[in-house]
Every structure is written in C-alpha cells, then in structure tokens.
C-alpha cells in the first residue's frame, strides 16, 4: 500500500511540491516504509534516527537539513498512516521555529545568547540516554529467556495452610457496605436485635434439640445478673417468634420446658 504504483501518485506534498519518489536519503525500501514508520517511538526517536543515520553529533545538528528530512517523513506518515500522533506536528513546528531563529542576525558578541537548538538538543540527549537504557534492559539476561529459575518438585510435600487473617475493621467495613446496599431496597428492611440477644439466641439453640426437653429455668444463669436474665428472656421470645423453639407447660404453674422445633 505504501509502494507507489503510479508515478503520478505522490507520496506526499512537501512544502507545496509533490514527492513522487522517496527522497534518496531516506534509504527505505518502499514496501518497508510503513513498517519502518511504525517503528518510530515518536518525534524524538525519528529525529535521533535522522541524526544518527548521518553520523552527526547531537550537539551539532544541521537544523535546516534535519528539519527538511523530518518534514518529508512527517508528510509521508500523514499520507500512509491515518493517524499521526499530534506530537509529530508539534515537533515540526518547533523545528521550524528553531530554523527561523537561527536565520535571524547573530546577536552582538558580548551578548550571551542561547543557541536556539539548546532546548531541543537537551531533549534529544535526554531521550537518547533512556532509549539506550531501554536497550540495555532488554539486553540483560531475563528470567525465562536467558536464565531460568531452578525449581524442583517435592511431591509429598505436606502443605501446611495458613489461614488468612481478618481484622475486625475489615469485617465491620464489609458489614457496613452490605447494609448500605440492603438499605437501597426498602422491602428488605433488616431488623436487628441487640447483639447480646442475638448471641444468646445462638447459645440457646445450641443447648436445645428437638428430641429432649430442657428446663426453661436452666436457660437462665442468675450469676449474670438482671441484665443477663433479661437478655435470655428476650432471646427466648425472639426464638419463639421465629418458631425456632417450643415452650411446653403441662399445667399451670408446672415447670416450663423448652425444645427445638422438630
């Protein structure tokens, strides 16, 4: 697709002139063009490529020439690729600006004027060192590529599992969240008994079963004091309400017995 099928099909329009042939100094076989364009990691990478290709020193870029080559590339990229990163155009503008500043008359000798290329050179250098570092990283021995971890099997290795820890905070946080969710559904109005009653309900259920009767009074532990007795009583009432236990009294004033609902 990048190869020119007909001479009249220009690759690009550079500064008003149609480019029908790839510039000689691009050194790119036409069918490889797109692949190559895609290998550039951005405008800095392209610039470095142009500079290095001509064995030029970053510190001494012939800005006019490099700008011309850069523009050619950018125009070609515009033609063959639908999307061109905006950064390429920003760079093109920057190059044009540097070029024009360098055309201005030289400032007087005693005036220290920064080379207009300075900022660009710094960026290029900065980028280049990381580009090299990236190459250096890739050249390192990597696990799974040059080096492999020794790991031997141990069949009958008893696995001792350690259970994850959970903090009370995590538990409460989970509960808060679920309650918030539940609150969004009105019809799921969740009633919460005092926790002490809830706990006592569990304890009572553990003590009773469906087969044998347990004395009602034995559920109470007087050493818990008044509050404990009340909690137990509420728990029994709650269990009754939820039909989890039955109370049996054979005759008035006879002992009351409790058993789980079968």
């Amino acid at each position, binding site marked *: 697709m990048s190869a020119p099928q007909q001479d009249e099909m220009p690759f690009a329009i550079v500064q008003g002139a149609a480019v029908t042939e790839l510039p000689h100094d691009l050194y790119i076989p036409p069918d490889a063009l797109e692949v190559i364009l895609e290998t550039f990691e951005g405008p800095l990478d392209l610039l470095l490529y142009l500079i290095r290709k001509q064995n030029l020193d970053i510190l001494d870029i012939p800005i006019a020439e490099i700008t011309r080559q850069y523009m050619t590339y950018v125009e070609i990229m515009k033609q063959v690729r639908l999307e061109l990163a905006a950064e390429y155009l920003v760079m093109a503008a920057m190059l044009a600006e540097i070029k024009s500043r360098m055309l201005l008359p030289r400032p007087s000798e005693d005036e220290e004027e920064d080379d207009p290329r300075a900022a660009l050179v710094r960026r290029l250098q900065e980028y280049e060192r990381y580009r090299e570092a990236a190459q250096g990283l890739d050249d390192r021995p990597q696990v799974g590529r040059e080096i*492999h*971890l*020794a*790991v*031997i*099997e*141990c*069949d*009958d*290795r*008893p*696995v*001792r*599992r*350690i*259970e*994850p*820890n*959970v*903090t*009370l*905070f*995590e*538990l*409460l*946080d*989970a*509960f*808060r*969240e*679920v*309650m918030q*969710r*539940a*609150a969004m*559904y009105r019809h*799921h*109005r*969740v*009633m*919460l*008994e*005092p*926790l*002490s009653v*809830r*706990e006592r*309900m*569990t304890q009572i*259920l*553990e003590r009773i079963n469906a087969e044998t009767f347990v004395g009602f009074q034995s559920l109470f532990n007087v050493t818990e004091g008044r509050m404990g007795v009340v909690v137990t009583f509420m728990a029994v009432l709650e269990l009754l309400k*939820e*039909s*989890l236990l039955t109370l049996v009294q054979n005759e008035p004033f006879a002992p009351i017995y409790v058993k*789980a*609902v*079968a």
Partner: protein
Amino acid sequence: MPKVNTELKNIVEAALLVAGQPLTIDKLVSLFPEDSLPTRDEVKAALQELESDYGARGIELKKIEHGYRFQTRERYANWIARLSEERPVRYSRALLETLAIIAYRQPVTRGEIEEIRGVGVSTEIVKTLLGREWIKQVGTRDVPGRPALFGTTRGFLEHFNLENLSDLPPLAELRDIDKLSAELNYQLPMDEPPAAAPAPPLPDRE
C-alpha cells in the same frame, strides 16, 4: 565409561533443575544442536556423575521410569514443609459480608443472608467459614427445606478479640467507620484484651 565433559554435565544439571518434570535421556540429548549431539552413553555418564555429586546434598537425582529428576531428600521434608506456610490468600468480600451478617443477624439461614446481600452465597464460602470454625450450624429453621441456621462460635470471638458479641459496634456507629477504625486498630494486635471499653449501648435498629 566415556570421560564426562563438564559442559555436558552442567547442561544436563541445569536442564534437570529447571524442567519441572522428569527428563529422558533422549530429551537431554535433544537439547544439543545437530552438530554436537552427545551420545546417549555420554549423557548417561553425566547423569551418573551428577548422582554421585549430589550423594550427600539436600537434593538427590532419581530415576522415575525412563526419566530423571532432582527431588528433595525425604529427610528434609519437615523443613521444606514450612516453606509453603506462607502466602495466605485473602478472603473475598463476599465471605467477609457473609460472616458479618451471620455475626449481626444470628441465627440466620443462608437464604436470609442472600436476601440481605442481594446475591447468592456460595457453598464454598459457608464451607470455608465452617472449616475455619468461625461459624457453626445451631439449628434448622422450621420452614420447607429446613434450612440450617448459622451462628458464630467461640473461635470467632477469640479471633476478633471480642469478649462477647455485644462488643461489636452497633450498626449506627458503623456509619462512621472511619472514626471507629482508629479505635479498633488501636486494639490490635490480637493478644491483648480489648481496652476495657464500656459495654456499648444497645445497638440501634435499622
């Protein structure tokens, strides 16, 4: 017996130690390029030398059917076992929510938990909580299907360093969890009894 080439032996050693499965002699031969294939006898000789090199080490070379592999010496099994003690996985949010609902709503059936959470509770979660001995079945509800009722255990209280359930903050306070967390964190580590907090007021109803 051909003399053993050190490079050959090293390559065989490295291959066996990274393969993760027994390697046959043929497989070991195949690691070499066409133009420098060792003979099967040479590989066998390398294996024999390796076997004696590791004669008194922490691992040993074993022949398994037609393959060879390194394995740990059995008598070090106890030490090695402790290696795998780590890496506890984290519990899922679903599990924590289920546990929290059981704590606050006990005795409660799985169906009721699902109703509150708005989503199903997997059998896996219930099993994990039972296995951890944080919850137990305390009865069944007298409705069709007779679903199990779950409640928390002594182990639950111990893990969360609670003397009893009413040490859990009432729901109303949960809304201000950030303030609460500061206090709670203060209570950890678990060994210490909770700073004698006054019994919280009876929880509000929602």
